[in-house]
């Protein structure tokens, strides 16, 4: 059976389909192969210049260097914000060290800690040894800060205790000095009474005896004040030893924390 030409209503006289099915299939295969083989065979020669293909991609230099940029002037570059992380250590002179805010810190400039304004999950702790003050960044739940299983070894406890001992030392010094001042006033009175007694001894000898008695009383009153001052001095020395212990614990806690935080 012969295939008759197919005529469609819209494309009548324009598209004439082959009559043979074999021929139609052969043309379809030829078209499909040529779509793949054509660009592969002719592409490099026809569409790409070989020398330009070897040249790396680059932008063209402007023909007129004085041409103003379309975007406009570039604004000032923002300052790089350093990233803080737990275990990071600083020395006093380091430029990138977060500043100590004396209104937000606990403790003092020698021993203390403060929450970082840059990252509320982090704290900065610091301690002072014989050489200088050292700083370290720790997490809010760090053992350095909380003490871990032993809360009395953490900065939170030790710094506050150190503050308390500081206050007690100042009070004790004031008490001691008040007693000392009284004792000296009494001795001043004793010396004054002796001077008067010495003068009276060659003007009116009987009256001198009275002033000698006053001088003796003043001297013993001064001794009483000396005793009180010595009691305060003993308390003061005990507090100073306690302060040294707390400061030693703070230094040790800092160094242990530094070693632990730096271990990956």
């Amino acid at each position, binding site marked *: 059976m012969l295939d008759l030409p197919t005529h469609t209503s819209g494309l009548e006289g324009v598209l004439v389909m082959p009559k043979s099915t074999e021929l139609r299939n052969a043309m379809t295969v030829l078209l499909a192969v040529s779509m793949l083989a054509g660009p592969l065979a002719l592409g490099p020669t026809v569409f790409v210049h070989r020398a330009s293909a070897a040249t790396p991609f680059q932008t063209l230099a402007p023909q007129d260097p004085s041409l103003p940029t379309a975007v406009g002037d570039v604004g000032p570059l923002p300052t790089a914000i350093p990233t803080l992380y737990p275990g990071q250590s600083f020395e006093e002179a380091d430029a990138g060290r977060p500043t100590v805010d004396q209104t937000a810190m606990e403790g003092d400039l*020698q021993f203390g800690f403060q929450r970082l304004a840059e990252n509320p999950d982090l704290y900065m702790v610091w301690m002072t040894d014989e050489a200088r003050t050292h700083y370290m960044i720790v997490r809010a739940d760090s053992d350095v800060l909380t003490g871990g299983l032993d809360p009395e070894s953490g900065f939170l406890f030790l710094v506050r205790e150190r503050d308390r001992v*500081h206050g007690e*030392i*100042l009070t004790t*010094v*004031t008490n001691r*000095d*008040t007693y*000392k*001042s009284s*004792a*000296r*006033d009494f*001795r*001043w009175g*004793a*010396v*004054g009474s*002796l*001077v008067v*007694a*010495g*003068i009276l*001894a*060659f*003007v009116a*000898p009987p009256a*001198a005896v009275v002033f*000698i008695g006053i*001088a003796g009383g003043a*001297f013993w009153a001064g001794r009483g004040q*000396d005793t009180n001052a010595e009691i305060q001095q003993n308390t003061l020395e005990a507090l100073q030893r306690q302060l040294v212990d707390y400061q030693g614990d703070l230094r040790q806690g800092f160094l242990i924390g530094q070693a632990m935080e730096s271990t990956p």
Partner: protein
Amino acid sequence: MEAARSTTYRLLMLLLIILIWFGLGNAAFSFAIGKVVGGAIEFAVSLALIALAVEGRVVRLLEGRRLNSLSLLVFAVAALVLVFDGVESLRFNETSLLGEVYLPGIITIVRAAGEFVLASVLIWEVGRLALSKA
């Protein structure tokens, strides 16, 4: 007689200077520890003693009289009290407190040093007078 007068005058002036030094030292110490009222009283008494020494009438009134043995004994005891006060209050390790300079501690050292010097002069003068009497 003139020599005795002159020695008495020197001794009385020295005793006044001792009392003035004592008083001014106490006043400075009181001000340094914040006891303003106590310091003001001590300072006022010291000023009165300075006025007494500068005006000089009391000293002139007494310088004509001869010192007796009881006077010398009492002045010697005053010198010992002075030395005792210096030894009792002198502490070289109190010049700083909590890492800062502690002014009352420094005042104490200066005052005690002055007391030792004045006590030495007083003992010297009393000794000379005692030897001259003997």
